[in-house]
C-alpha cells in the first residue's frame, strides 16, 4: 500500500520545527520520491516567513510603545491610572494624624513637636495594612516605609517625583525590605514637596501592588 503521508507529514513537521533542513538525506530522498513534497514544503516555509514578518512587526510596534509618545490618548490613560493613586487615603490619614497631634499636645500642654514622624507612625505604622510614610508634612525624607507582604522572589522599588511637575527625582534600588532610606545628599537635593510611589513586583517582574503619597518638608 502506497501511503507516504505519515512520513511526508512527519518530515514537514520536523523541518518546520527546525529539527531538519533540506540537506538532510531523508528530506532529499522524500523530494526524489514525492514530486509534490518540495512545493508543499516551499509553501509552508513561505507562510512561516510571513508569520516571522508578522512577529517582527508586533515586536517593533511593542518596542515603539515602550517609549512615551506624548499623545492625547496617552494623557488620558495616565489620568486614568494616576487618579486612583492620587486619590489615596492620605486626607483621611492626615485627619487621623491631626487628631493624634491635638491629643498629644493636649496631654503635654506644651509646644508642638516639630518632628511628626513618631506621631504619624503611631497612627499609620502599627498594624495598618498598606500604611505609608512619609505622608503630609514631615521634618525630613530620611526614611520611607510601607506595609505589604511580598511573595517569594518579589521585590520593592520606590520612585520619588517632584509634586510640582511629576519629574522623576530618584528610584531606589530594588529591595525586599518594606522600607528605604535614601542617601542624605540625594534627598537633600529634592524639592520641598514630593510625590512618591512604591511598587511591589512578583518574581517575574510584574507589578502586583502599588501605592504612593504626597509629602512635604516642614518649613
Amino acid at each position, binding site marked *: 500500500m502506497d501511503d507516504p503521508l505519515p512520513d511526508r507529514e512527519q518530515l514537514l513537521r520536523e523541518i518546520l520545527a527546525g529539527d531538519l533542513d533540506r540537506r538532510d538525506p531523508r528530506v532529499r530522498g522524500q523530494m526524489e520520491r514525492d514530486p509534490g513534497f518540495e512545493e508543499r514544503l516551499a509553501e509552508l516555509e513561505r507562510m512561516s516567513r510571513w508569520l516571522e514578518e*508578522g512577529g517582527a512587526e508586533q515586536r517593533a510596534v511593542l518596542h515603539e510603545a*515602550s517609549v512615551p509618545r506624548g499623545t492625547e490618548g496617552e494623557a*488620558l490613560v495616565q489620568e486614568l491610572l494616576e487618579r486612583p493613586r492620587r486619590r489615596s487615603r492620605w486626607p483621611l490619614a492626615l485627619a487621623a494624624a491631626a487628631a493624634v497631634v491635638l491629643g498629644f499636645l493636649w496631654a503635654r500642654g506644651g509646644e508642638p513637636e516639630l518632628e511628626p514622624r513618631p506621631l504619624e507612625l503611631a497612627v499609620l505604622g502599627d498594624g495598618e495594612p498598606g500604611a505609608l510614610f512619609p505622608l503630609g508634612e514631615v521634618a525630613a525624607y530620611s526614611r520611607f516605609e510601607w506595609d505589604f507582604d511580598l511573595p517569594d522572589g518579589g521585590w520593592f522599588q520606590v520612585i520619588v517625583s517632584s509634586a510640582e511637575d511629576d519629574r522623576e527625582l530618584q528610584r531606589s534600588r530594588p529591595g525586599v525590605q518594606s522600607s528605604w532610606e535614601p542617601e542624605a545628599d540625594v534627598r537633600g537635593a529634592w524639592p520641598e514637596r514630593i510625590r512618591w510611589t512604591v511598587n511591589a513586583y512578583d518574581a517575574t517582574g510584574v507589578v502586583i501592588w502599588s501605592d504612593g503619597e504626597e509629602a512635604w518638608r516642614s518649613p
Partner: protein
Amino acid sequence: MGTERQFDGAGRDLSLLRTIVDGLSGVKAQLTDQLITVPRILDAQNARLGRPLSEHDLADLTQDTLLVLLKKIDSLAAGSSLEGWIYRVCCFELMNGIRRKRKQPMLVGDATQDLVPPAETEPALPDWEYEDLHQGLEKIDANEAAVIRLKYFDDLTFDQIAERLDVSQGTAKTRFYRGMLKLQALLSHRFPEVARGRPSS
C-alpha cells in the same frame, strides 16, 4: 441619533473605565500596568498605516480599546503573552475604528469638508497586512494557536514554549504543525498554490 458609532470626544467612557480599573485586583491588576501601552500601540500602528485616524480619533479609540481589554481579560489564556494580546486587540480595534470612520457621513460645516475627496475617489482602506493572520489564529484550536503565537510573535524556542505551556516539546511541535496546516487552509487566498497542491488523504 444615527446608528453609526461616532468619535465624539474624550472623556465619554472615562468614569466607567475608572470604575473597572479601581475594581481590578490580583492577576487582573497586572493589566493596568500595561494599559499605558494601548495609546502608544494605537499611535504607532496608525502611523504605519499612514495616519488614517487623527490624534483625537485615537484618544476616543483608546477608551474603546481599554473597555474591550478590560471586558475580555478573562479570555486571556494561560501561558499567553499579555503584551501580544493587548497588541492584537489594539490592532483589531484600530482597523474597526478606521472602517467606522470611513462609513461616517460628512458632517455639515465640518472644517475638513473641502479637504476630503469625493467618495468615488476616496483611497482604499489601509490594509493591516497581518489582520487575516490574527483572525485565522482566533479560529483555530486555542492550544495550537498559542504555540504558533509563542514561536513567531514572542520569538520563543520550542523548549521555552513547552515549559511555558507545561507540555512536552513533542506535544508543542505537534500542536504547532497541526495549527500551521489549519492556518494554511484558512489563508488559502494568500497561499493559493498550497490549496491546489494539498495532498488528498
